[in-house]
């Protein structure tokens, strides 16, 4: 991953001293049982106990004990925060403290459905808090509304199936009583996919898959594992690690996102260059639809049996059914792991280097860039701190090959003016992946709102799209009356033979605006138009949801839309899975 950061994210002090290369970067080892929302924020990212805040001295600190960063003080953050956004600690915009149950509409209940559901013994709830918790993902407008205590249409009930058969029963009952089902995994959607359609008049039931979290078997001869789809990423890795295996699928949200969610959105992880994206990792999928269960009859590694039915399921975004069980490829845990980082004089050369590295060796990735001004590399020969960019790298495999590849990569980087910047910075970059989402909550306490969005684009357009979209964001903000210069930056997070995945980060100080979320949405909309006009895709892995639906037709063509619609019409003629995503 490469980021061009004139004022990127701040370096976190003290962390580098305690680097332990062989340890996982996540200290958190807790599994979800029972009610998720007890340890999770109801109106922000992640764990209740973990957040950035400014202490009484005005220094930033990260609370809790879960992350390597937890309990640390980061004096540089305040300065960065204030100078980047023009924000001030004096101007606070605190969130409402507790969920306001009275703001939640009473549930619309289909009594016959409830009666039948009771008889199955599957646990369910009509509690307002449970319902609100499952009514949203993490789009800016969703979190912003929650912080203001505003709640729209929410599910009327939550059910917790504990296995495939429970799901079959729930779907049967939903069809029988014409009830709307919305599958819920980890709740990390950033495409408005979990939003309940306000026009829905039927009972909406949130099908929370969190109790379906077991590894059912591991096949060591074929290196596959059969897993219930509600399992959350970090839990899956932890359990597999106990047996000496891993999947290598590590999306940034892996602490909270679920296997079923990955399948339903075509997820991508940062180690995909070694292990592959979700579509490369699944061997077998089982999904319950209103027409019955869809699955393949065998586990052959590849088939020529017409269009791959997995591809109707992958990316279906909960519109066709509930994914219940998945057989995934696994691999022995890597013998050796090594972080690294390279500093380039500018983004252009960094991108050229990544392209080159990719054509020579594949198991290389890059992580997050650090703030240039606080970064010791700025003292290096003549690098302009405003243009410099950092690639962070992670090598995995047997020791010998890792070291060999590492050398190759640094040799290539040198050709592009890149200087090795050490393992510490590389590891730091990876750790930041997991805490960066918490930063937005901090911003929202002080009039700063923002979000990231992504695209995929052919190599020859990477630099053009980055320049044009960043510029578009800045100009749109100006036109819409944003009083402070916005943060508008980007990084390359994934590389492919034919292109790359690019992330854009956009945030601004909204003081003086009457409807900041609307402004934010207009700018993001314009940025997406710009992405498409520059040859970028509608989404690389976040999905379409309801947020990007309007561009689907031009993205997949009229005929393509017709194909998708006809599948939906056959599989779910009663629109039981009525979240109205995608189409």
């Amino acid at each position, binding site marked *: 991953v490469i980021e061009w950061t004139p004022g990127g994210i701040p370096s976190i002090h003290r962390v580098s001293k305690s680097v332990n290369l062989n340890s996982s970067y996540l200290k958190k080892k807790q599994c979800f049982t029972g009610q998720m929302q007890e340890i999770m924020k109801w109106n922000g990212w992640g764990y209740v106990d973990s957040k950035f805040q400014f202490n009484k001295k005005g220094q930033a600190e990260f609370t809790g004990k879960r992350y390597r960063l937890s309990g640390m003080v980061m004096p540089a953050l305040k300065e960065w925060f204030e100078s980047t956004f023009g924000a001030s600690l004096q101007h606070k915009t605190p969130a409402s403290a507790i969920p306001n149950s009275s703001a939640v509409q009473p549930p619309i209940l289909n009594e016959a459905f409830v009666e039948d559901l009771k008889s199955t013994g599957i646990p369910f709830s009509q509690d307002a808090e449970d319902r609100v918790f499952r009514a949203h993902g993490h789009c800016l407008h969703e979190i912003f509304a929650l912080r203001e205590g505003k709640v729209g249409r929410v599910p009327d009930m939550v059910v917790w199936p504990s296995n495939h058969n429970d799901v079959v029963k729930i779907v049967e009952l939903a069809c029988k009583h014409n009830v709307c089902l919305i599958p819920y995994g980890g709740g990390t959607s950033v495409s408005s996919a979990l939003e309940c359609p306000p026009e829905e008049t039927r009972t909406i039931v949130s099908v929370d898959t969190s109790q379906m979290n077991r590894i059912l078997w591991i096949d060591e001869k074929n290196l596959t594992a059969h897993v219930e789809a509600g399992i959350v990423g970090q839990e899956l890795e932890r359990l597999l690690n106990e047996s000496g295996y891993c999947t290598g699928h590590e999306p940034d949200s892996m602490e909270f996102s679920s296997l079923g969610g990955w399948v339903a959105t075509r997820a991508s992880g940062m180690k995909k260059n070694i292990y592959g994206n979700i579509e490369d990792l699944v061997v077998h999928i089982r999904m319950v639809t209103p027409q019955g269960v869809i699955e393949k009859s065998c586990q052959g590694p590849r088939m020529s049996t017409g269009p791959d039915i997995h591809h109707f399921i992958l990316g279906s975004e909960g519109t066709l059914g509930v994914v219940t069980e998945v057989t995934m490829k696994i691999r022995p845990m890597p013998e050796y792991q090594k972080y690294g980082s390279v500093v380039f004089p500018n983004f252009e050369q960094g991108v050229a280097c990544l392209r080159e590295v990719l054509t020579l060796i594949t198991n290389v990735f890059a992580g997050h860039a650090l703030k240039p001004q606080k970064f010791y590399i700025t003292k290096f020969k003549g690098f302009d701190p405003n243009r410099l960019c950092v690639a962070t790298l992670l090598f995995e495999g047997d020791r010998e090959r890792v070291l060999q590849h590492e050398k190759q990569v640094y040799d290539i980087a040198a050709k592009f003016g890149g200087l090795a910047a050490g393992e510490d910075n590389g590891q730091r970059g990876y750790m930041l992946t997991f805490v960066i989402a918490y930063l937005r909550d901090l911003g929202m306490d002080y009039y700063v709102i923002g979000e990231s969005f992504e695209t995929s684009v052919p190599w*020859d*357009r990477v630099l*053009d*799209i980055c*320049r*044009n979209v960043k*510029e*578009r964001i800045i100009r749109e903000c100006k036109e819409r009356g944003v009083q402070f210069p916005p943060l508008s930056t980007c990084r390359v997070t994934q590389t492919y033979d034919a292109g790359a995945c690019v992330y854009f980060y956009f945030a601004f100080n909204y003081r003086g605006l009457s409807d900041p979320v609307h402004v934010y949405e207009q700018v993001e909309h314009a940025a997406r138009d710009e992405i*498409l*006009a*520059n*040859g970028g895709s509608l989404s690389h892995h976040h999905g379409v949801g309801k947020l990007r639906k309007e561009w689907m037709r*031009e993205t997949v063509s009229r005929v393509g839309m017709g194909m998708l619609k006809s599948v939906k019409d056959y599989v779910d003629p009663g629109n039981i899975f009525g979240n109205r995503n995608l189409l």
Partner: protein
Amino acid sequence: MTNTYRESDRLCLENEEFVDILEERRHSSDLGHAFRTFSPHPYKGAPPCSAGELSKTVLDSQHLRYVTKEIATETGASVDEVKDDARVILEEMSQNLQLGFIRLMGYTLTKVFKRLFTSIYVNMEGLSMLQQAVQDSPVILMPNHRSYVDFLIISYVLFTYDIPIPVIAAGIPLAGMKIVGEILRRSGAFFIRRAIGSDKLYWAVLSEYVRTIVRMGFAPLEFYVEGLRSRTLKSLTPKLGMMHMVLEPYFKGEVYDITLVPISISYDRVLEESLLAHELLGVPKPKESTTGLLKASRVLQENYGSMHVNFGRPVSVRQLCQGKINRCQYNLIPRDLPQGPSAEVQACVSWIAHLVVRLQEQGSFISPWSLMACLFLQAPASALTEQGLPWQQLTEKTLWLKKLALSFGARLHWPGQTPDADVLSSTIALHRSVIYRKSGRVFLLLEDEPARKRPISAVDGVNRTAAAVLMLASYRNQSLHVFIRPALLATAVRITKSTRRDELFVFFCFLQDIFSNEFIFIPGKSSQDFEEACFLLKECGGICVGQEEVTEAEAGLEVLSFLCALLQPFIDSYQVIFSFLYELEAHVFSEKEFVPAVRSFATKLILSGDLHTYEALSSDTQKNILSAVRRLGAVTKLRVSEQNEYKVNKGAVRQIENILSGKIPPQMLQTAPDARL
């Protein structure tokens, strides 16, 4: 000390500050100016790019590699041979901008300009907007082209005000001039062949060269969207090839935006004035040569009044294209591959090009002389040469016209502090090469006759008068854009004798259609043009406009008659050539025959007293009419070989003639879109 003049001492609608840049040169050292510290701020601080680097980037480009290979396959030549050809083309084309030469040019130009012009006015606001624009995105400078002087004046001004020196697209004949060609090259000119035709390699090299300059943005690119120096001093229909090349980096997302800066250069008196008329009458233009230029040095003895360089408001291509271009059309083919423009892109490019020419027109300054020329041409030629016009009457009429022009939004160069009578007297004095005043009357000055034994023939007499008339016509043309829309409406009112708004609109559109090579109308804007014409004519009291009706106002006679008379030479010329076409014996004629045949046809009619305008003798008018009848489908091109031939549909020509003379109502003629690139 700079001499500034504002609204207070000049009749100008906008409160703009114009600075006479010669004023400072007259008071301080020319050498000091030439050696001034030059510190421009280019786009994104782009580093200067040497001619060698630029050429290398172009030659190594994927686009050129692709085309080279394609040509090699087609012709059987080796890739290296084709590449060598490309290199030769590039060497011929390449600019070699060097600051040292700009200084040298600056020094020389200062000397020349001070001799030729009383003042060179530049609008400071435009300059400061340009200064900003240059830093924000690649900038395209788009001046109109009326004189060779245009060529370096912009570089001269930008050098003076610390704005990056442009690279300039120039015609290849200039490159052929000894020394001068090289000086121009080092002052930033790059040279383009005139007839490129279907030379694929040449197109590829040129377009890549242009796009690379735009993409890199190290210097503004300057080109004449009209393609040529206008011999008639009237705006020319824009050429679209270069315009498309320039815009393509935006369409393909290679730059965030491109800024177009329309520049209007207006002259009180054009250096080439007498040359122009002769060219139009078929005395071919002397090939650009250094000795020719030196001979022209007698022009240095004369005074050419003042010159205005108006830097227009920068226009964002991104904003212009909003909703007009779907840039996704470039997503599926690698951007380096040559790709013909889609219909949507062609239409947009054509629209932008026309728009820029309109902006140039709106930014230009009209001199009292141009207004007088409008009036001269409304008198019969014989009256001008023999009886003369009463000075008093001319003065009054000119002042009346000044008021009308101002009410139509014209920008006049009319010194405010001088009494009107003196302004007009000095105008006549400045143009004593065309007009002279004798005992209270004003006469058209015919050229000295070469000493001959026998008396000049009647045909020669026509040509002598024509030369003087066409020169006047050129100066009239400088202000035509101000009057053209109301004039079309006035003509529609008079010819159709209709009062119905919808009928007048149809005829208005017909006139726009038929005259679209003659005047600049932005495609697809007919109804706005019509509304504008109604509004302006109503405001000046020419017509009354109702919901459904448009009627001649009682007090509107003078305005309407003036406007109709303004357009009359064009209508007469078109009618003459229409008669020529349907009186042809054959149905087919060759391009070569056309101009001389028309000329002798028209000359006869002038001699017989059946044709009152000499403008039908202008080759420019003749060519425009040919384009018009082709566009209207009355004439079709038969062969595209060495000898172009045309086939006439006499019925169709007759029909157009009848519509134009009001005998039959116009139906919406089907015209082919004129958007070839």
